[in-house]
């Protein structure tokens, strides 16, 4: 009997203790939750193509300073096919991505059509944010709606090795036609100790789009109508003539196929002195400033992109890009919008250092340029030429409205041009094939 009482007592005690413990835990948990709720940090995840150390982390840090209640995590994806596939699958599989960047229009459209982008118009309207006032013309739209804000303004121009021009006794042009460009690059092409130095260098991905799509024709340059391709426009013939002259006759430009296959980048060739000029957008300033990795002993001068003689237009490509968009699945719509707006406006000043021309009109061009060219600007760059070229107001802006089968058309143009520059087919059949295949796609 005694034993039993003892047992009962001890069990009772244990029970009481356990209950106390459990309830203690419970109340503790509740308090914790309450505490968390008080300073509940909203966390948003941002996927972008620029390495975080080249500016985006700065933007995020400054944003978090202004919005202490929001925590931003920046994840970098590489802006190539594979990287974009990774982003798309992550978006589809419901991984937490609240905000992401899109660099190219075809991906922009693809993501909107797949329902992976939120139209920002209601939020912008509520906020009283005027796009026209903030960026001017050329903000990408899809069926009349805005799905993102442009975080920078890109256009291509010619980067010149001053020393090579001086040695060849050529004056650096402040405006030129493609014919003159071909002429000058031919003069600059030479053989230096068995290594060929080309007069010009452009990357297919940039200029293939630029010349065919943009500069002369502007928007929707691949489309004659919704059901007909535009490869019979004279601009495509002119493009082929230029390629033929530079790559097949003068040898002033490395064959596109070889350049693409060797995975050459304009800045790499330019800074190692293997080419006298290259065509690129301003993001390469960060490599020019990197004297450790890319030591060079010449000053870089900017010249505008050559124009096509007789053309009325001179459009810039890709224009307002680096579009920052919202995932419709986000649980933090407001925080995401705040971040998008910040990155789309004043946040841009932290990106100039990475060679991004601000798209927001609220940033002083002079300040942006100083940031872009860095501390050794006078030593490395001809600053005046950059001021004139980068902020050239005569460059027109555009955005595309037709996207049906766009990647297919791009592939067709690339394939046919490759056949042309490898000498597999002549100019006539290149254009005829492109036209026929293009029409077939759109039919």
């Amino acid at each position, binding site marked *: 009997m005694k034993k039993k009482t003892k047992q009962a007592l001890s069990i009772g005690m244990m029970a009481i203790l356990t209950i106390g413990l459990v309830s203690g835990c419970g109340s503790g948990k509740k308090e914790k939750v309450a505490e968390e709720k008080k300073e509940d940090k909203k966390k948003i995840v941002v996927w972008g193509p620029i390495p975080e150390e080249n500016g985006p982390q700065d933007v995020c840090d400054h944003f978090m300073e202004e919005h202490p209640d929001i925590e931003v995590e920046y994840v970098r994806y590489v802006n190539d096919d594979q990287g974009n596939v990774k982003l*798309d699958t992550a978006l589809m599989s419901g991984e937490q991505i609240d905000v992401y960047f899109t660099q190219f229009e075809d991906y922009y459209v693809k993501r909107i*059509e797949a329902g992976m982008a939120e139209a920002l118009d209601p939020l912008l309207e509520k906020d009283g944010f005027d796009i026209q006032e903030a960026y001017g013309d050329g903000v990408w739209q899809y069926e009349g709606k805005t799905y993102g804000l442009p975080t920078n303004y890109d256009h291509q121009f010619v980067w010149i090795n001053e020393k090579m021009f001086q040695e060849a006794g050529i004056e650096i042009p402040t405006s030129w036609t493609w014919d003159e460009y071909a002429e000058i690059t031919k003069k600059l092409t030479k053989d230096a100790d068995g290594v060929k130095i080309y007069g010009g260098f452009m990357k297919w991905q940039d200029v293939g789009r630029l010349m065919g799509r943009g500069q002369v024709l502007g928007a929707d340059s691949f489309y004659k109508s919704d059901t007909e391709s535009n490869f019979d426009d004279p601009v495509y013939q002119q493009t082929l003539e230029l390629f033929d002259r530079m790559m097949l006759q003068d040898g002033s430009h490395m064959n596109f196929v070889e350049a693409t296959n060797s995975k050459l980048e304009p800045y790499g060739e330019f800074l190692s002195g293997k080419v006298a000029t290259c065509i690129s957008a301003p993001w390469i300033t960060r490599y020019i400033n990197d004297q450790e990795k890319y030591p060079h002993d010449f000053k870089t001068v900017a010249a505008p992109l050559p124009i096509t003689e007789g053309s009325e237009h001179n459009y810039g490509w890709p224009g307002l890009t680096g579009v920052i968009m919202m995932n419709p699945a986000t649980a933090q719509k407001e925080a995401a919008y705040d971040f998008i707006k910040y990155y789309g406006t004043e946040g841009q000043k932290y990106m100039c250092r990475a060679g991004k021309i601000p798209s927001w009109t609220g940033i002083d061009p002079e300040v942006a340029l100083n940031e872009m060219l860095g501390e050794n600007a006078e030593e490395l760059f001809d600053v005046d030429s950059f001021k004139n070229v980068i902020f050239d107001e005569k460059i027109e802006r555009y955005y595309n409205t037709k996207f049906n089968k766009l990647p297919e058309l791009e592939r067709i143009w690339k394939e046919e041009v*490759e056949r042309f520059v490898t000498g597999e087919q002549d100019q006539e059949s290149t254009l005829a094939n492109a036209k026929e295949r293009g029409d077939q796609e759109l039919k």
Partner: protein
Amino acid sequence: MNRNKKNVLKGLLFIAPNYIGFFIFTLVPMVTAIVISFTKWKMGDMEFIGLKNYLELLSSRSFYKSFLNTVLFVLGTVPVTIVLGLGIAYFVDRYAYGKSLIRTIMFLPYTANIVAICYVWMMLFQPTYGPVNQLILKFVKTAPGWLTSSEWALICIMALQVWMYAGYCMVIYLAALKQVPSDLMEAAAIDGASRYKQFVHIILPSLSPTTFFILITMLINSLKIFAPMNIMTDGGPGDSTSVLVFQSYITAFRYNDMGTASAISTILFLIILGITLYQWKGQNKWVNY
């Protein structure tokens, strides 16, 4: 539960880990792809369109071209790999010193990472600065553009495939050569059969199960070739190295047309299935176990 049932259960449990993996990562995606191939799906809404994707492929130039390239690739790699693998194995088995060293060297490419191999290949065959062309230009005036030339690009990738798999074939053949019955060989030698006759009438028939295994795996490997095209040529120049898997890949991830892409891979699946079944049936005629 009786003993028999228990045994069956045990057996099932043993194969379960493998089958669960196969089910989740192979069977389910495969069936999904077949279903998607009958729809129009751009990662948004799905619309059932019957056989339209397949019919459109029949009139698509890119599809024909990549189909043709795939066939060429198989014809250009499989026989060469097998003959080369067998030849080297025979030579090493009979005549070479330092067998294990040769075996290791030959087998190395198979174990190396395909991406790394592609980059090395690209450097070797770079038309202007690459060592291969530097060497050729020492003797003749012009050298082919290899990966940058429509005529040579596919051949260049075939060479890579052969180089990668010849060593693999060799190692398997080497093992099989050890199994060739020596009493038969001795009898043949005594009866005065020449080396050639010994090879054709004794060695080849005894190797037939191995050849059958290698033939099937090589065929499948060559039919689903993709990485070198994606890494080195992007299907180019033009569409000269575009093969079925590559075409399926860009249709899915560049054109965002999942339906057509799935149709392409379903067609490839049917081709592989057909060939394998045919071989399986045909093996009675030439494979001796």
